[in-house]
């Protein structure tokens, strides 16, 4: 027998190998790919049809098509949903014993989380690109910001998703229960989404909802992404990025602490 032994490797290789593993796992699971595309697509289709005539009301700028208004919100929302899957994926790995195996290896535990976050960001990026392509080809998405504005809007959505992925990784690392995670995620996201500027301008909402929407962070994220895509005067992009970064740092700190606790 050869006597070569390996006793560990550097941080970068660990990160690369673990990220590759998460991505491979995703591409190995057709159902996961299918639903991660289907869900935002259904949302894009339904909302663009249901609300298509709403742009003739006073709260919309003249000449604005609804899909141009909607798509940036879909991007932010898709990134948000995807970040929830990040946490769920971590919990699933913990349950399957994969994490137990990693723990017995000479690797830094935080790399497991970083890799999860990184691979999920790559996956989210793919999802967002697909939504944009669908939007352009099927629904006539043609925002004033052009390709650059759209990519910037996508980048902002990605930053929001990246930050929230840390939040859900933290929740997952502490709660360690996939069903509970799904419920928490749904309960948190569903109202946030509707009580915001995602589907209609806040001015069109009943006054109490308007009050909620005005303090809803999602409103700011969507507005920032939208202003980039629509080449409007850019509002709150820096604020959204700084907020995302702050949330990510805090989330990561909690995630790593929670993850270090024994299984």
């Amino acid at each position: 027998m050869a006597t070569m032994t390996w006793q560990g490797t550097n941080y970068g290789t660990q990160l690369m190998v673990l990220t590759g593993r998460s991505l491979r796992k995703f591409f190995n699971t057709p159902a996961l790919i299918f639903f991660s595309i289907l869900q935002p697509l259904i949302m894009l289709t339904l909302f663009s049809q249901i609300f298509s005539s709403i742009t003739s009301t006073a709260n919309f700028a003249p000449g604005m098509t609804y899909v141009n208004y909607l798509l940036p919100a879909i991007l932010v929302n898709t990134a948000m949903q995807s970040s929830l899957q990040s946490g769920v994926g971590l919990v699933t790995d913990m349950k399957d014993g994969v994490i137990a195996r990693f723990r017995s290896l000479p690797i830094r535990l935080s790399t497991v989380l970083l890799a999860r976050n990184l691979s999920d960001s790559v996956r989210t990026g793919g999802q967002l690109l697909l939504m944009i392509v669908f939007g352009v080809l099927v629904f006539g998405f043609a925002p004033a910001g052009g390709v650059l504005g759209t990519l910037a809007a996508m980048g902002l959505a990605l930053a929001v998703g990246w930050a929230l992925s840390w939040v859900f990784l933290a929740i997952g690392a502490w709660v360690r229960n996939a069903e509970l995670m799904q419920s928490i995620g749904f309960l948190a996201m569903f109202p946030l989404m509707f009580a915001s500027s995602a589907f209609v301008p806040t001015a069109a909402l009943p006054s109490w909802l308007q009050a909620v929407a005005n303090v809803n962070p999602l409103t700011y994220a969507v507005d920032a992404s939208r202003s980039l895509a629509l080449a409007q005067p850019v509002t709150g992009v820096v604020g959204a990025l700084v907020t995302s970064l702050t949330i990510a740092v805090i989330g990561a700190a909690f995630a790593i602490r929670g993850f270090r606790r024994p299984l």
Partner: protein
Amino acid sequence: MSELMIEASNVSKTFGDVRALDGVSITVPKGSVLGLLGHNGAGKTTLVNLLTTMLPPTDGEAKVAGFDVVHQAHQVRSRIGLTGQFAAVDEALSGFDNLVLIARLLGASKRQAQARSDELMEMFDLTDAAKRKAKTYSGGMRRRLDLAASLVGRPEVLFLDEPTTGLDPSSRLGMWEIVEKLVSDGTTVLLTTQYLDEADRLADSITVLSQGKVVASGTSAELKAQVGQRTVTVTLESASEVHAACDALTKIGMHPVSEGLTITTPVAATRDLATIVRALDDNGLEVHDIALGEPTLDDVYLALAAA
């Protein structure tokens, strides 16, 4: 005295008010096999978790391969392999990819990782299933893959937590042969089991754990001497004859214990079986069933309690 690869002194672990381990000390010399014997809840997994750096001890110290499990966890992890009580494989990846992943994480190049994985799949008779997702593996295959995964880095010390529980007899035998092969290659092994015959076959020395404490330790022969070797179990046709049968056995120098229709008695040799049959027959007692049993963990506990 050869180098100690595992050394635990007085380790304790409490979970709330459960004292899972209570002042346990063990030593395992390089190249030997320690069998950790105990029923469910005895503390076997907790001790394994402690020694493999998965859990910090509440009290006491432990060294594996010369490194402290708390303060030098990374060095310990570079030298051990762990096959836990529950298989730790990535179900969505193929068996082969599972092994490659671990080899890569340990620092092997792509080529080396694939070569090592091929070698292990071959060794564990998984080559035909190498490209299939681990999800599709049977229980026995999954166990083998899990063991293979813990061997990727050629660990100096291997921990096996109940490696054969739930396996069918032939998979069990296969697992024993694999362990024997590893040991012959010089690996130090700590294995936990609920079965005395398994510890007997594989272990150089045995430590019996009960409610978090070491209640006995020694070589298999020493333990068996305490246990009183094997037992014969006689099942009678009628309850009215149990008393007479016990008397008959006592007369020929046995120490029978009855429960319902069955009578159990320790024996020194296989030929005692014939003596017992004759004694019962001479007294005209109707025997439904008679069996010679290997001592079990229960017998060890019983003997220890009696001592």
